[in-house]
């Protein structure tokens, strides 16, 4: 009896172990079968085009969950693509946006990236540098390339090769409350040519602050917290003064660039806005500009169009990026697609990507999510961003080179972490110069630890 019981327990545990291993075994086996099948197809494809047509290729596609509308459009696009042709079957997987970076990094470490996936802007370069993505140059004709916004091409190019294409871009400028601006007697620029000078901008802040309705002249969206927003939004300010996050000639050091006198001047001015009460370092909510209307200006991107237009109606104006210091600079970049080197069928992945970047498909996406269409031909048809559109300023900034991509280097995660900390700390009162020095030290250390991130030939 005692023996029986003992063996029973051992058996139960043993069986559960075996079952679990069986599960994995089966799974691994089917994967192997699939792999060999697809390999065969790849081998046959060049020789026999028809064979490939009979036997459709399945590709895995990952994308971030995004807002409901964005996801809906992409799911519809996948469905449409799968029915309109019979060579490629797209298998989409939506990954939660809140943890997308960690999840893709884990997948790259485990070596199971899909065929095609999207990246949040500058997070791309670690993957290109490490060889996880393949260049798209052979697929992208020069006419096609020319039709894309220069910012998109710049963002997708690493080491002289194009690795990614986005279907939409983002825009950053200043939204204004027309009623307040007129009351304060501030000139409202209408194109990037006649944007505010630095003096004009400062005068505008003073004039707005003097109004009874206004508690803080400008809202910098500090309620976003510790977020990529800090780098996206505020690195253009130091770039306006002539500084940058890193020396872009060779991406080897931030010394003398990020902690340059220009950067210190820029951020000291930025800090003074908070100290002098023109901006709120800790806003109570998101709606100081469009809901409670206690701010006359809002320094934020295109994504606030809907709440802003709902909140302010005809009083909403979009003002191009002012000249901060020496020149006007704005941010750019958004989610963009790349084909992985693990893909057995890069051609099939490209076919799907090619479909996504058709102007009509781009417009379908941007009409849903409100972003800037990535191609000029799509942009021209866009009601919001096209010539005469209410958000045309964003398009101008992106087309005319006012927009600067964030640093194109695998060191980006370190750079942005360091810069976010600088912004957070100086806004809560820390010394600008020593914060920048700390950031430079961290960035240079990271580059040194990785032997300067050499690009493999």
């Amino acid at each position, binding site marked *: 009896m005692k023996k029986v019981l003992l063996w029973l327990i051992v058996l139960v545990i043993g069986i559960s172990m075996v079952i679990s291993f069986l599960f994995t075994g089966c799974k691994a086996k089917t994967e192997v079968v699939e792999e060999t099948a697809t390999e065969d197809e790849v081998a046959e494809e060049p020789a026999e085009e028809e064979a490939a047509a009979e036997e459709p290729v399945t590709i895995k596609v990952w994308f971030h969950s995004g807002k409901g509308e964005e996801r809906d459009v992409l799911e519809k696009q996948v469905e449409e693509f799968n029915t309109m042709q019979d060579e490629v079957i797209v298998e989409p997987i939506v990954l939660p946006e809140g943890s997308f970076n960690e999840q893709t*990094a884990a997948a790259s470490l485990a070596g199971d990236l899909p065929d095609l996936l999207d990246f949040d802007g500058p997070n791309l370069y670690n993957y290109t540098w*490490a*060889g996880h993505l393949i260049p798209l140059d052979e697929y992208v004709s020069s006419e096609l390339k020319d039709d894309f916004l220069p910012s998109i091409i710049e963002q997708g190019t690493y080491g002289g090769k194009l690795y990614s294409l986005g279907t939409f871009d983002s825009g950053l400028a200043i939204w204004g409350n027309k009623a307040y601006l007129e009351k304060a007697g501030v000139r409202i620029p209408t194109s990037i040519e006649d944007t505010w000078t630095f003096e004009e901008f400062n005068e505008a802040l003073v004039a707005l602050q003097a109004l009874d309705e206004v508690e803080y002249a400008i809202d910098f969206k500090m309620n976003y917290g*510790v977020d990529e927003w800090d780098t996206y939004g505020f690195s253009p300010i130091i770039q306006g003064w002539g500084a940058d996050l890193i020396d872009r000639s060779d991406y080897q050091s931030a010394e003398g660039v990020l902690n340059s006198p220009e950067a210190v001047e820029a951020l000291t001015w930025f800090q003074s806005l908070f100290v002098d009460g023109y901006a709120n370092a800790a806003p109570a909510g998101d709606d100081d500009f469009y809901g409670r209307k206690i701010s006359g200006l809002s320094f934020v991107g295109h994504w606030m169009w809907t709440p802003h237009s709902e909140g302010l109606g005809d009083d909403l104006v979009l003002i191009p990026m002012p000249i901060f210091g020496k020149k006007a600079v704005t941010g750019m970049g958004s989610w963009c697609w790349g084909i992985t080197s693990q893909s057995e069928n890069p051609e099939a992945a490209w076919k799907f990507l090619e479909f996504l970047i058709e102007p009509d498909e781009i417009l379908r996406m941007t009409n849903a999510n409100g972003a800037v269409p990535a191609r000029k031909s799509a942009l021209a048809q866009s009601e919001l961003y096209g010539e005469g559109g209410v958000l045309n300023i964003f398009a101008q900034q992106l087309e005319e080179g006012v927009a600067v991509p964030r640093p194109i280097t695998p060191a980006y995660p370190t750079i942005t972490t360091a810069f976010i900390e600088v912004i*957070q700390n100086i806004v809560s009162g820390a010394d600008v110069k020593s914060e920048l020095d700390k950031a430079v030290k961290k960035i240079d250390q*990271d580059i040194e630890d*990785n032997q300067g991130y050499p690009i493999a030939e």
Partner: protein
Amino acid sequence: MHNLNQNIKMRRKSNNSDLRSNLKRGFGYKRKREVTVAWVLCAPALTLLFIFLVVPFIIAFFLSFTDQRLIPNPNMPTQFIGFRNFLRLFMDEYFQRALLNNFIFAIVVVPVQTAFALLLAILVNQKLRFINLFRTIYFTPVVTTMVVVAIVWSFLYNPGEGFINQFIKTISGGLLGPYGWLDDTRLALTAIMVLSIWQGVGFQMVIYLAGLQGIPAELYEAAEVDSANAWQKFWYITLPQLKNTTIFVVISTTILAFKLFTQVWVMTRGGPQSATLTAIVLLYKEGFVQNRIGYSAAIAVLFFLIVFFISMVQRIYLRGERR
């Protein structure tokens, strides 16, 4: 844990005597069987712990001597870099700050939470109607996912008209506030502490409640014969009787305090100006945000040694106290 050592000692003694009597009676066979059964019973857990906890930690230990990246680069394989991570860690002011915050957090939260838990346990140990309802309410935060708790509290801590600021304003008649709870370097860690106590105290309360119910009623009756007042009863009966409960609560709260991560990550990411940075937040930031798995592993190893040392000291001290 003190219990454990003492028990081991006692057991050792009885083991010897058992063994001797067994030998006398010629129970050698049975003894051998017992050893076999013991190992069979240990085997599943030991195997699982070894594979899924010990081995990974040993790997982490090795990684701490390398420059392993999160996103690996086949063209630049991971290298052995000796003690570089550790040498850098000793100089790293962020790590020092993180440990300091961990210590401050533990030193404040452990006693406050323990005392508060005891107070609550005494309150809900009364024989009143609906007392079960109150127990459940006090326990609600424990069953609420920490991510959710942190999000909700960041709204309550809202720097403008957040509930907590409004409350303080009302109480003080408009004299105090508003405070930027999570934005002010002097307040952020306190804000995290309050939330952590709020979330965790219900669990300790239940443990104390159980402890209170385990105290023999005769002790109180005897005290009443000696006409002791409520305070004396608490001081001379309740507290000493709850000693083992307290030791358990203190040790487990200390370990949890050092593992502080989720609420900080959701609410402040360690800011402002490292005011809420903790060892695990730094470990996560280095490893998962900045791709430096090697350095992050070094933090893990050092952190483990430090917490292990602290809990050893705690065990020795508490054991000594018991004698």
